[in-house]
C-alpha cells in the first residue's frame, strides 16, 4: 500500500468515525429521554405534535422517539429490555403487560399516583387493568370495546338488514348466510370467521356466565364449551356465512391482511378503536355494532377495556421526568387535544369532556359506541396469566384444524384444552 493510500484511508476513517460517533454524546447535560410506541403515520404525527408541546414547556428536556409497526415493535422492546436499555416511556399492550411487569421491566407507578401522576378522574376499573399483582405498572391511554365492523353499503345492496345490538348468534348466522347468497360483490362473504379469535370466544363465554380464566389463572371453561363453539362455526361454514378454511387463511394476522380489507368479508371481528383502520380499506361507510348475543335478553358479555397503555421503564435513568412526561401525555389539555382519540377514547373523564366538541365523525362514532353499550358491558374479567400468548396461538391452530377438516370439533377441542393446560402448568 502506498503512503498516499494510507493517508486517504486514515482521513476517510476519521471522517466516518466523526459521522458515526456524533450521536449519543452531544446532549449529555440535558435530560434526554426516549419514548417508544407502535402505530401508523397518523399516530406518529399526533404524538410528535404532543411531544413538541412538551419540549416547549420543559426546556432542557429532549425526547427521542422510536416508533414502528406492531410486528416490529415487540422484538425490539424485548431485546432492549433484556439488555437493560428499554425506552423511558413505552406503549404497552394488555397481551404483554403481565409478561413485562411480573419480570421487573416496568416501573411501579403507585408512589407517583396523586403527586406527579394525576389519574384521579380515570375510571377505577380501567385503571385496575394496568395493575399486575396489585401494583400499578401501566396507565390506560384510551379505552375501547370489542365490536363488529361491517360494510353498511354492501349489506344495503344485498337487501339484508345488518346485525344490531339485539342480534343473536342464531340470527347472525342466518343473516350472514343470506348475505353471502344475495350479494353481487364477487367472493364476499357475510362475515369473517371469528372462531379463531380469543376475544370473540371470551365474549361468547361471558354471555354464558363463564370467563377465559379463573382469578387463580386456570382455564374457566372446558372441552364441552369449545366443542360447542367450534360446532357453531362449522355450521356457519357449511351454511356459507363464513368462508371455507383456505379463504379464511388468507386473512390471518393483522387488520391490513384481514378478509375485510381484501373485500372478502362484509363483517370484521374488531375493536372499536380499529374503526378508522377498517374504514381505510373501503370507500363504503363502515359501522360498528356489538358482537351477537346468546339470547336477545341475555348478557352482552362485553366490557370496556384499555385499548393500550403507557408505562415507564424500571431502568429509566430519569424516572421522575419520565412520569412527568407520562402524566403530560395523559392529562395536559394541549397534549390530549393533539393526541385526540387516535389511541382509543381517552380514559380520563375530563379529557373526554374537553375533546367531545372537537371530535370528528369517526371519533364520535367510536365514542358513541362505547357510551351506548350500557348494560351490554359488564365487569372486567380476571387478569390473563403468563402463557396466554401461547394459549391464544394453540387456540387459533385448533380452530384451523376444524376449518380445514383435519379434526372434528370435539377432537380439536379436547386436544386444545390439553395443550392449554400444559402451558399453564409450565408457566
Amino acid at each position, binding site marked *: 500500500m502506498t503512503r498516499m493510500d494510507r493517508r486517504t484511508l486514515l482521513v476517510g476513517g476519521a471522517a466516518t468515525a466523526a459521522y458515526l460517533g456524533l450521536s*449519543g454524546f452531544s446532549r449529555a447535560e440535558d435530560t434526554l429521554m426516549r419514548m417508544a410506541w407502535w*402505530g401508523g*403515520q397518523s399516530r406518529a404525527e399526533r404524538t410528535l405534535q404532543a411531544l413538541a408541546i412538551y419540549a416547549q414547556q420543559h426546556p432542557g428536556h429532549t425526547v427521542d*422517539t422510536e416508533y*414502528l409497526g406492531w410486528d416490529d415493535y415487540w422484538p*425490539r422492546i424485548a431485546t432492549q429490555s433484556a439488555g437493560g436499555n428499554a425506552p423511558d416511556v413505552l406503549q404497552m399492550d394488555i397481551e404483554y403487560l403481565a409478561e413485562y411487569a411480573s419480570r421487573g421491566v416496568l416501573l411501579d407507578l403507585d408512589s407517583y399516583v396523586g403527586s406527579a401522576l394525576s389519574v384521579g378522574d380515570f375510571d377505577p376499573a380501567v385503571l385496575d387493568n394496568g395493575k399486575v399483582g396489585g401494583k400499578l405498572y401501566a396507565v390506560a391511554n384510551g379505552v375501547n370495546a370489542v365490536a363488529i365492523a361491517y360494510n353498511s353499503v354492501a349489506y344495503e345492496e344485498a337487501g339484508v338488514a345488518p346485525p344490531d345490538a339485539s342480534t343473536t348468534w342464531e340470527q347472525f348466522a342466518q343473516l350472514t348466510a343470506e348475505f353471502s347468497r344475495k350479494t353481487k360483490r364477487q367472493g364476499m362473504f357475510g362475515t369473517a370467521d371469528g372462531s379463531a379469535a380469543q376475544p370473540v370466544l371470551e365474549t361468547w363465554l361471558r354471555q354464558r356466565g363463564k370467563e377465559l380464566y379463573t382469578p387463580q389463572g386456570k382455564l374457566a371453561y372446558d372441552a364441552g364449551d369449545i366443542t360447542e363453539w367450534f360446532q357453531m362455526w362449522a355450521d356457519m361454514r357449511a351454511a356459507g356465512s363464513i368462508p371455507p378454511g383456505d379463504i379464511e387463511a388468507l386473512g390471518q*394476522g393483522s387488520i391490513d391482511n384481514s378478509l375485510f380489507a381484501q*373485500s372478502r368479508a362484509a363483517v370484521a371481528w374488531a375493536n372499536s378503536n380499529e374503526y378508522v*383502520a377498517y374504514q381505510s380499506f373501503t370507500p363504503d361507510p363502515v359501522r360498528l355494532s356489538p358482537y351477537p348475543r346468546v339470547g336477545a335478553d341475555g348478557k352482552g358479555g362485553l366490557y370496556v377495556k384499555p385499548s393500550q397503555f403507557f408505562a415507564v421503564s424500571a431502568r429509566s435513568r430519569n424516572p421522575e421526568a419520565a412520569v412527568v412526561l407520562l402524566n403530560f401525555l395523559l392529562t395536559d389539555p394541549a397534549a390530549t387535544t393533539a393526541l385526540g382519540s387516535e389511541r382509543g377514547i381517552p380514559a380520563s373523564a375530563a379529557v373526554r369532556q374537553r375533546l367531545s366538541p372537537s371530535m370528528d365523525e369517526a371519533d364520535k362514532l367510536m365514542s358513541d359506541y362505547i357510551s351506548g353499550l350500557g348494560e351490554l358491558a359488564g365487569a372486567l374479567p380476571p387478569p390473563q396469566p403468563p402463557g396466554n400468548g401461547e394459549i391464544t396461538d394453540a387456540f387459533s391452530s385448533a380452530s384451523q384444524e376444524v376449518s380445514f377438516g383435519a379434526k372434528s370439533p370435539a377432537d380439536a377441542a379436547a386436544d386444545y384444552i390439553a395443550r392449554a393446560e400444559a402451558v399453564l402448568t409450565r408457566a
Partner: protein
Amino acid sequence: MLEPTSPERPARATRRPLASLIVHALLIATSFAMLYPLLWMLAASFKPQEEIFSSTSLIPQQFTLDGYVSGWSGLSVDFGRFFLNSLTISLLSIAGNLIACSLAAFAFARLQFPGRKPLFAILLLTMMLPYHVTLIPQYVMFFNLGWVNTLLPLIVPKFLAVDAFFIFMMVQFFRGIPHEIQEAAIIDGCNPLQVYWYAILPLSTPVLATAAIFTFIFTWDDFFGPLIYLSDVRKYTVSLGLRTFVDGTGISNWGAVFAMSCLALVPVLLLFLFFQRFLIQGIATTGIKR
C-alpha cells in the same frame, strides 16, 4: 449444450439466426414471468389503498401519486434521510467485507499453516447457528460498548469479517486460480502480501464484484439488524422505514410501502448495473495463459 464465450468472440448463437431467435424468445418469456410481480408492484404504487387490495390489474383504475408524496415525507423524517443512512451502511459494509474477507480467504485458500482445517470448520460453523438466539447477548455486548443506536454494530463486524459466507465464497474462487501464477510470483521474490495484492486480487475481479453486489443487497434489505440497533427514527434505514408504514393493529399506508419499495430498488439496480461489468472480467478475458 452450452459453453462460455468471451464477449470479443462472436458467439455461436449469433451465427445461427433460428437458434438465436429461440433463445431470445425463451429469455423474454422468462423475463416476463420474473418481472410480472414487480410490474404489479409498480402499478400498485400508483393505486389508492382500496384498489391495491381488491384488484390484480396491472393498470391502475384510479391513478394517484399519493403513495410517493405521503411516502417520501409522511414520517417525521423524510425518506431521503433513510436512503442516506442505508447508503452509508451499505457502502462501508462493502469496503469492510472486501478487505477483511479477502484477507482471510487468501490465507485459507493459498497458505499452508497449522490449524487451517479446524479454523475453516469453525468458520463454517459460524454460519449455522440461527441468529435469533445470539441476538440478546450481542445486543448486551454492543450496548456495553456504547454502540447501540449508532451505525457501528452494523458496520464494524463487516471489517472483522464476521460474514463467513463471503470468506467461503472467495476461498472457492481463489482456489480456482492456477497455482503457476502464485509460484511464479514467489520465484520473483514476492512475499505473501505481494502475492495476495499483485497475483490473486487482480485475477479475482468477478468474485470481488460479486461480493460487493451481495454485500450491498444484503445490507440494503436487512431489517432485523437495523430494527434492533437503530432505535431513533432519524437513523432508520430504507428497509426499516418501509416497515414503519405498516401497523397490523391500525392504519397502514400500503400505497407508500409500494411507492417507496419501487424507489428503494433504484440504487440497488444502479449499483448492480455498475458492478456487473466487473463480473465478466475473469481469467477468461485477461489473457493469462497456463
